């Protein structure tokens, strides 16, 4: 339970989709996440993938995992997924 409390949903933004035809965003997102959390199972961690118009994903991360991801070359920015309101 404490582990879950430590985590929050972050948006991991990776900019434009690479033009390479063999690029598979989902598998890239998965491998990045696996590398950071140090586990092969990303169940309950990967919230969503952005893969059609731009590149990135949303994941449940701890603060230290966020920092590691933010320093990765392929990652442009990592920021908390805030709640917004209907106006």
């Amino acid at each position: 339970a404490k582990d879950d409390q430590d985590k929050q949903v972050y948006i991991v933004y990776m900019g434009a989709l690479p033009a390479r035809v063999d690029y598979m965003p989902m598998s890239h997102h998965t491998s990045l996440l696996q590398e950071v959390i140090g586990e092969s199972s990303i169940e309950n961690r990967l919230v969503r993938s952005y893969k059609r118009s731009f590149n990135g994903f949303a994941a449940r991360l701890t603060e230290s995992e966020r920092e590691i991801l933010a320093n990765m070359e392929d990652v442009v920015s990592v920021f908390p997924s805030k709640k917004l309101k209907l106006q």
Partner: protein
Amino acid sequence: TTMSWDFMGLKEGKRAKRNPSIESNTIIGVIDSGIYPESESFSDKGFGPPPKKWKGVCEGGTNFSCNNKLIGARSYTPKTNEFPHSARDNMGHGTHTASTAAGNAVKDVSFYGLGNGTARGGVPAARIAVYKVCEAGFEGCTGDGILSAYDDAIADNVDLITISIGGDTGQPFEVDPTAIGAFHAMAKGILTLNSAGNSGPESSTVSSIAPWIFTVAASNTNRGFVTKVVLGDGKTVGRSVNSFDLKGTKYPLVYGESATRSCDADSARFCSPGCLDSKLVKGKIVLCDSAEHPDEAQAMGAIASITKSSKADFATIFSFSVSVLSEDDYNTVLSYMNSTKNPKAAVLKSGTTFKQTAPVIASYSSRGPNTIIPDILKPDITAPGSEILAAYSPDAPPSKSDTRHVKYSLLTGTSMSCPHVAGVAAYLKTFHPRWSPSMIQSAIMTTAWPMNASASPINEMDEFAYGAGHVDPISAIHPGLVYEANKSDHIAFLCGLNYTGKNLKLISGDSVSCTKEQTKSLPRNLNYPSMTAQVSATKPFKVAFRRTVTNVGMSNSTYKAKVVGTKLKAKVVPGVLSFKSLHEKKSFTVTVSGKGPGAEKLVSTHLIWSDGFHSVRSPIVVYAS
């Protein structure tokens, strides 16, 4: 919408010039709380199959069907026990905004007889694709869900995106999902319309601040709902949408402050939850100092409630008879009650009045200046946002504690003004299908009706309240000249803001680097249809704006510059632009000078380029914070 489109001059059916075949190929992406697919506003009677360019899907979930009008649906809300996972609208908001932008024309709709007319969208023949990111009972709409909605909407090939969602204040681009999503949309030729926010009339409250987003403020138009309160000794007028008819019967008045046995006077006078005593309010009209909790009075058996609000310039629906009064009117009722032995009053059913001063900016509409990019004017434009009657979801109550179910209801907010401009942008695109997002935005801004801040007693914010003015759909078709800004212009703009390397990639998505020239470029020189500069409050200033216009009027034309207003000294060089062909571009510089405007003051004027047929108007705003 039973009145708003007429108010703006976009008449119903054949009374407005339209391009039906192109309109039918237009797809509006609505990022919101879902949609009520069974609404008559989204019936596909008369519609052919979806446009060939459509690449989306109908993944509305349980008991949700699309049709040839509502061609796509996706949902990004978290799974809850309360509602089945679906694109169905459990809040009413998404149904309302979608129908305002592109709903069918549906005759004889009203809210219990109030506001009767034809409800319709700006482009009734257009298609709708829904991206649900907000769910009832779930507090807010998540940033990660909103970014997913952009990811899909852009790839699905929508023509424009309307999103009436935001935060309380502006956020840096790099942590704003709407700014990131809208940048990618703009790069693909898709214009994003976003509501300015409802945190007015305080300054610096506009939450949508990126120049690649078209930010919409809200106006009150010429139809106002009023709920009369008849006192024993006379009459006053209040605001609300009261569909309940008490037949003019007068009931005893009681003040919330004296109708409690459990709360202190300060809590009770607001009718705060748990304060009112049913024995003291039953069968009476309860006066509450706030319009937040009149349903507390209802729950305790009150017949009606009279409340006050500092924002009494628009009407709200309540679950029983309520009239919301201005401070002065409310005090009149209070002093009547305190000076009379057996005070009584009647709260009448609402009626409508014609407001000659319209349009005026709504009190709640968020104001500039732009807290993140001081030299970009936000909001950009104003459209009707108050008391808008449009399609609603019967699955959502029309107000708090309400047990009624309606298919059309009234809502107020910049959420409502945003889809009006989305409808206008789509309408404009049917005449100019190849125009870029910036051309559409420019055409709407430079043809806007001038607005006068002084018409509203609680607004002295001028362009920070209404931007370029009030949207004028018909004039926008023929702007004459447009200010264009494409992806590379926006990248140069970001370079000028010191976005480099990784940070620049953050916004643009591309691995680009800034040239020396780009790094030196000033944000105020982005080719934007408005011109804004933040200067020192006390020192004399002289600032220049460089702009380029594209001729989209007549091939052979000559435009002369005119600066309207005397508050700023302005010089335009060259003062005459001669065009030999369509799409020809000409550049000019506007230099404004004067003494410091004073702290938290703005001075403004307008640049108008005119060829005798077209009038291309841009606000010039200089301010000090």
